[in-house]
């Protein structure tokens, strides 16, 4: 360990806690009575609702269309649109979002509107993925089609499929790889076509032997799909580190993975892509991990998008202890929520109900500059120094130290013996810098508009003066009035 060459720099080894939820098969949720479909399931602008309150919808019908690089949203079940209104959402900060409230039919019919899923070219293939409303399910929630379109004018050498699931507690990708390996591998084949890559590598951490075996079996006849075992090491599943581990290249600062000829996609997204292209199914379901020490029976549930978290908890037999923290996503990077009456979204990989014993202490002690954060940072930053600068409100200096490279992966705060909220400093600073930049842009815009206005007024004045002079000259030429000597402006005199 001491001298072995490590695949990624830094990182930590948190307790996986995978056994809580990876022993049981995926449970399919019975159709819920109501679904709450947020219009902002993805990064980018919210989708635009294309239905009215009171409309009847069929399963698979598009209810909102993506605009400006965002993704379509479809009805998971048939039913009636009850309202389109603000509803509490499972988003950082606990705010509200506009959601379509769907009252599902009590007697579900088997009608399902299929997507048109025949294609002739790469662009058409990508269009089907766009129609299906597929977003990255690993947490980035970036529309998959938008990402794929960026490969059309770039050469992609390797397609990397991320099955690391390095966050503790989460096992949804593990179970998807085990139970839906055919769909996953099918999706990989489609993706190879979509981005015209030469080969694909599926990377899985070695704490998921069953998933690895399933994938190896499913890819036995594919020459261009390789399954690779990676050591269990957080944050192996972060795209930049994943690329570093498998391709031995680093994505240069400010560039994207496609710039180094690599395209990364998550395993569950591959399964969704397969379902869209093979069967014409839109993305209306996903597998969610429900876990944590406060939950009666942790498990993985395949639920329609828009299911309330409270319904999923009921399926797990409720809580056995009072949850000290409810986390959406993994415990290293996820955010907390306080209201279980919020629905899951396309990017919700897990909901954790952590009890008091599982939580870190919330009081911190002074930094003794032990350097553990420096050793743990996968990006090679100096978290202690950056946090100190941010605490002193010197955001510019923190940026010079490399704040923009920070992944907010939480490795530094996890390892810190002083329990300093390092990640909190960095997420505050990145948000604050973004806000300041926006203000600056606004101010610049205002200044530019103001300058344009002054210039325009000046030009108009000059034009007026010229017209006046021309009129005068015309009149003088006509000889109707006696010519007066031109007046010298007073201001010019004073200035000289």
């Amino acid at each position, binding site marked *: 360990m001491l001298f072995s060459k490590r695949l990624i720099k830094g990182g930590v080894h948190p307790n996986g806690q995978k056994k809580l939820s990876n022993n049981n098969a995926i449970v399919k949720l019975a159709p819920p009575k109501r679904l709450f479909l947020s219009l902002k399931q993805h990064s980018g602008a919210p989708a635009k609702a294309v239905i009215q309150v009171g409309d009847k919808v069929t399963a698979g019908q598009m209810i909102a269309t993506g605009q400006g690089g965002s993704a379509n949203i479809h009805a998971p079940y048939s039913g009636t649109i009850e309202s389109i209104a603000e509803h509490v959402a499972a988003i950082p900060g606990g705010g509200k979002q506009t959601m379509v409230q769907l009252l599902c039919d009590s007697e579900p019919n088997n009608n399902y509107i299929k997507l048109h899923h025949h294609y002739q070219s790469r662009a058409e293939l990508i269009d089907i993925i766009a129609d299906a409303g597929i977003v990255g399910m690993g947490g980035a929630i970036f529309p998959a089609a938008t990402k794929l379109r960026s490969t059309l004018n770039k050469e992609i050498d390797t397609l990397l499929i991320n099955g690391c699931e390095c966050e503790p507690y989460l096992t949804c990708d593990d179970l998807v790889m085990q139970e839906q390996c055919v769909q996953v591998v099918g999706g990989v084949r489609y993706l190879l076509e979509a981005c015209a890559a030469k080969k694909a590598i599926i990377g899985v951490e070695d704490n998921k032997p069953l998933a690895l075996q399933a994938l190896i079996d499913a890819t036995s006849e594919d020459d261009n799909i390789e399954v690779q075992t990676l050591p269990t090491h957080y944050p192996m599943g972060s795209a930049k580190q994943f690329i570093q581990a498998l391709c031995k290249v680093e994505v240069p600062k400010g560039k994207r993975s496609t710039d180094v000829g690599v395209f990364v996609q998550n395993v569950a997204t591959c399964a969704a892509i397969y379902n869209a292209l093979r069967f014409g199914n839109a993305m209306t379901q996903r597998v969610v991990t429900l876990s944590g020490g406060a939950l009666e029976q942790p498990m993985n549930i395949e639920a329609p998008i828009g299911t309330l978290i409270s319904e999923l908890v009921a399926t797990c037999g409720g809580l056995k202890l009072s949850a000290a923290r409810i986390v959406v996503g993994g415990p290293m990077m996820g955010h907390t*929520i*306080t209201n279980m009456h919020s629905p899951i979204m396309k990017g919700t990989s897990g909901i954790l109900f952590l009890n008091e014993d599982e939580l870190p202490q919330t009081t911190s002690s002074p930094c*003794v500059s032990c*350097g553990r954060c420096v050793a743990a940072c996968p990006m090679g930053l100096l978290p202690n120094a950056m946090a100190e600068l941010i605490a002193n409100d010197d955001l510019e200096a923190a940026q010079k130290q490399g704040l923009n490279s920070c992944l907010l992966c939480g490795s530094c705060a996890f390892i810190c013996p002083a329990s300093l909220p390092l990640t909190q400093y960095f997420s505050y600073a990145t948000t604050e810098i973004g806000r300041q930049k926006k203000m600056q842009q606004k101010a610049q815009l205002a200044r530019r508009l103001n300058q344009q206005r002054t210039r325009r007024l000046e030009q108009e004045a000059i034009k007026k003066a010229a017209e006046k002079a021309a009129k005068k000259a015309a009149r003088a030429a006509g000889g109707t009035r006696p010519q007066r000597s031109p007046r010298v402006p007073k201001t010019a005199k004073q200035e000289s």
Partner: protein
Amino acid sequence: MPTLLLSAPHVHSGMTVSRLMRQVILALLPALVFGLYLFGEQALILVIASLSSGLITEWLCQKCQDKPIGNLMDSSAIVTILLLVMSLPPHFPWYLGALGAAIAVIFGKQVYGGLGQNLFNPAMLARVVLLISFPVEMTDWPSPTPVLPAFSGLNELIDGFTGATTLGSVMETGSAVIDMQLFPLLLGINPGSLGESPVLLLIGGIWMAYKGVIDWRISVALLVGCLLPSTIAWGLSPETVLTPIAQLASGGLLLAALFIATDPVTSPTTPKGRILYGLGCGALIFLIRIFGAYPEGAAFAILLMNAVSPLIESVTKQRTYGESK
């Protein structure tokens, strides 16, 4: 239902600063206990007096502050005082030991603001203050007189060593040709500081490195920095320079390499910086031992390197991911 929104990560390694400090104390204990066994009750009184004085001073300092940094329970003061005491002559007057402990806490740590804020290693700062203020007491090295005859033959071994420390006698006589047996040398049964037993310090140090309490880079770099030039010097002039083994086992070299230079507060945080810092400490110890006016220079060497530690840190910034190589 939780009502607070809290920031990620929601799990933690479980390591705390006070646990780190307790692990250092645990690693120090074998050498300390052996030292007490060798040097008797006078040494025990010195340890007790210093600890009481240091802890009371720490408590008073924190009482005086509105927002004290750190607290008595984080054990950091105990580590500081133990390191000071273990580097003192075993029969050093207890009241001066108590004074030293108070100096370490007040001028080594609290004037800077408390735990984690100090520039210099508090234990070494206090040791240097004592060395300059009380040179006679600080260079009075008694022979070990074990309170219990643990095993036969020990007393005979001990009889062979009286008077000055190994390094001190080389400094005085200019001759490094000393009749020495390896066993007592490695176990530390010779005149020297209270906690200098090389083997027991090494056991504690290796355990700490294994547990990740200290960074092995500093220790290894310090030993290389001191012993590499020492070996060359010994090869050139074996009459006036001690053998590398004797160099390693004498003075505070191992205590410095494993416990003092590895103090996180006063050493750099970058891996490269730590190697540079360790090499610097080692090289300075070598220079002071060979050319300096004092026989042993670990305290001075570490204080000097403490002063440049922030500088080392800023020039050894690591390359961030995605930056050109």
